[in-house]
Structure formats: structure tokens, C-alpha cells
């Protein structure tokens, strides 16, 4: 079987849509890994997933959705509100899963629910929002936005390795929240100047 672990790294010419698509692909792979594995592998994959979801959803909330709201044919506020509502709901499920940890009873069911919600949400974006961005936003602006998202992701803390006991509670959620803050900072800086 070929290695499907690592998605092709987006290059410098990639725009924010390419980057978000690559993140969707990676999110799909991590869900597969979490669902199909056990023990330490599952714990690590889940940590990676939590971190990526935090960075990704924050970037979308800060960049993609507000921009879509302003575009012609963007479906107005209703379409964006639907996406935001889905994201809020996914976050609630995610919080519960983080709090319980991968060994908790109900994790198997919860992770499938979260996966279905996140991947459906991602497809809506790919079908409805991303094409609008490519159609109406200048290419160089989309590339600049990619830079901001990438920088924010790179400066995020490395994957947490909580011990068996500390896998519960807020220890795992802490780094995820830190990612959100950094992504926000990085995104807001360039967008305020241009």
C-alpha cells in the first residue's frame, strides 16, 4: 500500500484556497487515522487533529467567512451563518471529546459524529465558498492570505504529549486555544494593512 500519510506540501505559489484544501485533505486523513488506530498512535493522531482543526477553523472564521459575506453571489449572511453554526456545533463536540480523552467511553461514537460534521462542513465550503473566492478576490490577495495562515500555523506550539492521566481535562485544550490566538494575530496583522 502506498503511503498516504503526508499530503503534498503547498508551495509558495499556492493561495489560501489551496492551503485550506490541503488542510481539509489532512483533516480527512487524521480522522481516518484516529478512527482506525488505538493506544499511543490514536492519542498522537487525535492531538494532531485537534491542533489542525483549531488552526484551520480559526483561519476560516477570521478570513474566509467574513470575506465571503461581502462577495456577490455569496448567499449573503445566511450561507455564512450556516457555516458558522456548524463550526460552533463541531467545537462543542470537540470540547467533549478533548475533555474525555481518547480512552473515554463514547469516544468512538463521538469521533464519528465529529468527522461527519466536519467533513460535510468542509465540502460545503469547497462547493460554495472557495469558488467565490477564486472568482472575485484578486489572486495576489489570496496568496498573501495564504502566507498569513501558514505563518500562524508554523508558530503554533508543537504537539502536546499528555501523559495517560493528564490526557483528560484542559491540558489538551490549552495548546489548541493557543493556536487559535496565534492564528488570529497573524491573520489580523496583514489584513489590517491591506
Amino acid at each position: 500500500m502506498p503511503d498516504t500519510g503526508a499530503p503534498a506540501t503547498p508551495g509558495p505559489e499556492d493561495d489560501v484556497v489551496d492551503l485550506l484544501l490541503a488542510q481539509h485533505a489532512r483533516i480527512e486523513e487524521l480522522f481516518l487515522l484516529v478512527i482506525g488506530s488505538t493506544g499511543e498512535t490514536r492519542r498522537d493522531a487525535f492531538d494532531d487533529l485537534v491542533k489542525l482543526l483549531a488552526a484551520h477553523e480559526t483561519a476560516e472564521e477570521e478570513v474566509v467567512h467574513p470575506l465571503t459575506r461581502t462577495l456577490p453571489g455569496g448567499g449573503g449572511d445566511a450561507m455564512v451563518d450556516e457555516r458558522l453554526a456548524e463550526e460552533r456545533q463541531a467545537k462543542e463536540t470537540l470540547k467533549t471529546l478533548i475533555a474525555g480523552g481518547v480512552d473515554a467511553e463514547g469516544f468512538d461514537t463521538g469521533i464519528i459524529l465529529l468527522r461527519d460534521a466536519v467533513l460535510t462542513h468542509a465540502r460545503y465550503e469547497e462547493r460554495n465558498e472557495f469558488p467565490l473566492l477564486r472568482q472575485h478576490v484578486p489572486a495576489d490577495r489570496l496568496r498573501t492570505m495564504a502566507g498569513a495562515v501558514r505563518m500562524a500555523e508554523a508558530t503554533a506550539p508543537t504537539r502536546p504529549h499528555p501523559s495517560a492521566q493528564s490526557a483528560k481535562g484542559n491540558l489538551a485544550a490549552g495548546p489548541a486555544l493557543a493556536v487559535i490566538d496565534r492564528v488570529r494575530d497573524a491573520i489580523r496583522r496583514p489584513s489590517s494593512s491591506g
Partner: protein
Amino acid sequence: MFNPLEHKGIPLESQIRNWRELNVEPIDPEAVDPYTRCRIITMNGIEVEAINFQHQFARNCPDQEVRRQLAYVRYLESQQQRVVNWLLPGVASVLETTLGYEQVAVDLTAWVARHEPDPYLKQGYEFGVLEDFDHLYRYANLYEMVERRKADKIVQGLTEVMPGRPTVVEHRHPFDEVRTPYDRNTVDPRSKLHALTILSAEQQVMFYYMNVGPQYMEPIARQLYQEISLIEQEHVTHYESLLDPGENWWERLLTHEYNECWLYYSFMQQESDPRIKAVWELHLQMELAHLQQAVDLLRRHDGREPEEIVGNAGLPEPLTFEPNKEYLRHLLATQVDLNKIGEGYVREAHERFEAMQQQLHDGQKPPSEQVIDMHRERFGDEYRIETEGPHPVESLRARGGSHA
């Protein structure tokens, strides 16, 4: 072997389904057996052909009572098509379904080629499969470019992804697509089922590409669908010309229904998903009654017995979705440079082929070449899945590397 002619199935008057029954739960794209997806795509193509065939039959039939009977069974076939195709998940993208279509085209055609008793017909399938094999590779590269995902998510290592007969040389003069038909009186009944199955599958691929292609915004995606849909059209010409045009409407109806029984029976045997297996089982029971109606029409209007058309041995060996990697590598090594002329096959390029190539390409690279160039440009290499070693044809090995 199971003989569908000996079974009555579900009475026709009990076959109409309500909304609840039509509202099927789709497969989970993140946890599906790729060959379950292939079976769904295949049966969709088969049902689409059943519907279209019966529409054509009705347009050519002056008997109002027969037209009513056809209309009724056609409605049932339509509900079957809606159920089967609606098993595909809404979250899958058009390109993901496309990759599924090409996996079907490769492993279905390869299986049929391996089991076809007639050497001339077998050659026709061996020739065609190397072209669909190439389409899978072109779409896999497009998929990574526009959706940033890997085709292995769909094919899951069961089918390799690498060049076949390059799409650029698949554009031949339409004259050379027309094959010699089998003789309905002497051909093995299995050959009739094979030809109808592959024809239906390729026809559905053609319909799909010619309709979804313009939904893309990316120019390369639009162009690639346009190019490959034209090849699929030629494949339909290729496969449909294998069928004996002397078969009359009654016997064709019988062969269609018998073929549906064979395929639902086959897929019921091997289905890994119990929920989908129940669909195949139900549809087999429905088809048995459709077959009975076709038998009845054949006897009344054509004065023949069904065994004269499909034999009395019962169904052939179940058609199976399984990897065909070694077989395909063998075909690649021996037939990749094959071309067609008249109703035969040649290795040399010939005048009519060269003229067609000149007219169509007009000195430019077609989209199927551009998509690989663009992938190399953006990712530094091309996308392939070569699980069994390097490409068997040296000139088709990756230049500048590949990744999977």
C-alpha cells in the same frame, strides 16, 4: 448454476416503492470498500441502459399494450436506478466519483477480458481497458491539483495508477472505432452479457463526463473532462458495434433483463456491506419478474424460447470486482502501442490516424498532457500509485519522479 429463468421473483404489481423506501442511506465515503462503490457505479450504468433501451423500444413499438407493459417495467427500473445511484454520498466530489468510475472501467473491463471466450471480443476489451487505465491516471493528477487529495483515498491500493495507452493517441478516426459484430446465432451467451455490461458501463461514463464537465471553474478540469468524454464516446461506438445488429427488440429486451439478473446475483454473492447486499438481493428478486415479462413477450411476439437466446446453462460465473494488477501489467507490456484500423488492430500509425491526430491536436498538447505538465510544475512530480514496481513500459516511467 442459478438459473433466473426458473424463478418468478417479486410480482410486478408489488414492486412500486414509496418515498420512505426510495430514501436510501448513502454509503460512508470515509469507510467504504472501494469495490462496493464500484458495484454501485456499475449497477447505476446498467439501470440507466435498461431505462434508455426501453425508451427506444417503446418509440419503435406500434403495439399499445406492449408500450404500456414497457412503461410499467421502465418505471420500476427507474426506481431501481434512483435507489442505486442515491447510494452514492452527497459529500463526495464530482472528481471523487469520477475516480470511482475509472476504477470501475479498469477492473470491470479487465475481469471481462479475462473471462471472454471469443478471441476477437477479448481483444476488444484488452484494447479498451488500457485507455481507461490511462484516464484514471490523468484524473488522479487533476484531483490532487484541484482538490489537494490523493486518488489512493478512492482506489485504496486495489488498482494501480500510472499511464496506460496515452490519452493523446486514443483519438482515432471514428471509422476505425467500428468493430465486427458477433453472430447472435453462434456466439457464446456469456459474450452477449459481457458486451452489454461493458457497453452500459462506458455509456454511463460518457453521460456523466459530458454533463458534469462544465460544472468546473478550473480551465484544466473543464478541458480534461471534454477530452476524455470524447474518448468515452468512441468507446461506446467500439463496444456497441460488437453487438449483433440483427438481434430483434424482443431478444434484446430478454438479454437486458437476463444481464441484470446476472449482475445483481454476482454482486449479492460478494458484497461486503450487508446493507448494500440487501439492495442487490431485493433488486435481483425484482429483475426475476422483469425477466419473466420479457420471456412472455418473446414467446408471444417472436415465437421463440428464452433458452435460444441465453442458453440453458443458467448464469455464468459471477462477475467479480478484484484487483487485476498483474494482468494489466501484462497488457501494458504487450499492447500499449496497439492501434486500430478498419475492424482490426495494428501496431503502426496509419494515414487516417495521422490525419485525425493532426486535425484534432493541431500542433498543440491536449488537456490530458497538460494536466500532467501542470502537476509536475506545481508539485515537482506526477501522481502515481505503482504498488508492483516500476512501470512495465520503460518509456512510460515517471520523468522527474512521482509520488503516491
